[in-house]
């Protein structure tokens, strides 16, 4: 193997909590090690060079969705990005645009996700008569379970929100993650909401009819969720709900 490269990390630094602090890009050097991810590199930088560096992580395995950031122009998960995939030795790191900045690379995706869940009521709405928790749930057809699971894989990383120019321009737009989650409940046979109920939540300019199909969500989602098909499906479904109402 060739000699280890020295990588330069150009990192966005700004702490809104520090009075007088100004946003800037700061460069750090680090020797690359085999199997190094951006997440590993950031941890080493924080341990060895600058303990004030702020970034988020929990699982290190692409499961929690907290380490999303913009790496060389691509919004993605830092723990799943190997530094070896970059030909150039300079790696630029920016926080995800479109969220409240906590500091440096850390953004408040949690706040956004909670608000969107409350706004779109992203939880199961069972039919009113099965309130008794002792009643066994009806078994679900394996195909349906698989279909649900496919959408359930979202880790709420916020990448699709940042990658969407529509969302950046229109802050009240629900974004791909909101639409994907609605699609998930729409498929669920246990959910009692009708197309009409969903129409009231996403059948508008801030919902499915605000999407301009720029496909930043589909192309960047680290979980490869099928945004394009699902949003098109919802759009047709909502148009249909309108036509028969």
């Amino acid at each position: 193997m060739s000699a280890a490269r020295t990588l330069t990390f150009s990192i966005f630094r700004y702490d809104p909590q520090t009075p007088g602090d100004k946003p800037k890009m700061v460069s750090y050097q680090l020797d690359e090690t085999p199997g190094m991810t951006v997440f590993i590199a950031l941890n080493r930088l924080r341990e060895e060079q600058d303990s004030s560096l702020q970034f988020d992580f929990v699982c290190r395995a692409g499961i929690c969705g907290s380490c999303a950031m913009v790496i060389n122009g691509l919004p993605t998960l830092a723990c799943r990005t190997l530094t070896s995939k970059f030909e150039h030795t300079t790696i630029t790191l920016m926080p995800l645009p479109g969220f409240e900045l906590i500091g440096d690379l850390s953004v408040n995706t949690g706040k956004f996700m909670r608000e969107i869940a409350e706004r779109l009521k992203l939880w199961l709405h069972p039919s009113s008569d099965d309130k008794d928790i002792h009643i066994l749930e009806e078994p679900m057809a394996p195909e349906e379970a698989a279909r649900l699971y496919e959408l359930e894989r979202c880790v709420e990383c916020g990448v699709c929100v940042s990658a969407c120019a529509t969302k950046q321009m229109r802050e009240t737009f629900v974004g791909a993650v909101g639409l994907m989650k609605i699609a998930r409940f729409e498929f669920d046979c246990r959910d009692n909401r009708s197309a009409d109920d969903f129409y009231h939540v996403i059948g508008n300019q801030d919902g499915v009819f605000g999407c301009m199909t720029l496909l930043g969500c589909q192309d960047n989602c680290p979980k490869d969720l099928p945004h394009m098909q699902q949003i098109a499906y919802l759009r047709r479904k909502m148009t249909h709900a309108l036509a028969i109402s």
Partner: protein
Amino acid sequence: MTINTFVPNPISPRVLGHRRSAIADQLQSATGIMLGCFLLVHLHFESSILLGKDAFYHVVQFLEGGMFSATGHGYPWTSQIISLIMLVVVMVHAGTALRRFPIQLGQWRALRNQQQIIKHSDSRLWFWQLITGFGLFFLAPVHLYDMLTDPSIGPNLSAERVYHGGLWILYIVLLPMVVIHAMLGLYRVLLKWGWINQRTLLRKLTMIAIVYLLMLGLASLAAYLSIGAELSLPVTPYTPS
């Protein structure tokens, strides 16, 4: 870059379905498809000049209903009616599309900021669709108004319009704008409603269509210019010998 990359301030809990936005979305798509298809046909008819004056004459004669007129040349008012219909379609399309336009400075900044930070090719294509759409908002009505007020079309009459009337300046700007806007628009609308899911293939076809239509349009424009240069004023309408 924006520092506090804003978060939707407690998102309004009052989210209601709006019939209007659904209808506007469908109208935008429908008129877009109509205009895109019209452009495809329009550019091909008009490029028949590349096959010679006779070919173009017959195309125009056919489209203007030559077989129903006593002179055999057809009625230029058919062009006026088509122009009028197209003007209405363009207006509906523009009206429904404008609601997407980043009207506020803040929206424009957010868009540019995001495009600087995040590299995404389809968003960039859309950006060109937006810019060309904005240009067409002004240029397309000029062309349509011209056809409404002076509908005379024919190998010599059109060449006169292009060359002596100086309209080549309009066309040389209009052509790339309309071709880019229409083809990217057709690409997007097909994906948008999920009618086609083979995106890579569709994207390739779109790029091929853009290059092809541009070449076709430019070649026809060159043909009109060279015919126009040979004409002496006042121009007599062409009749096949």
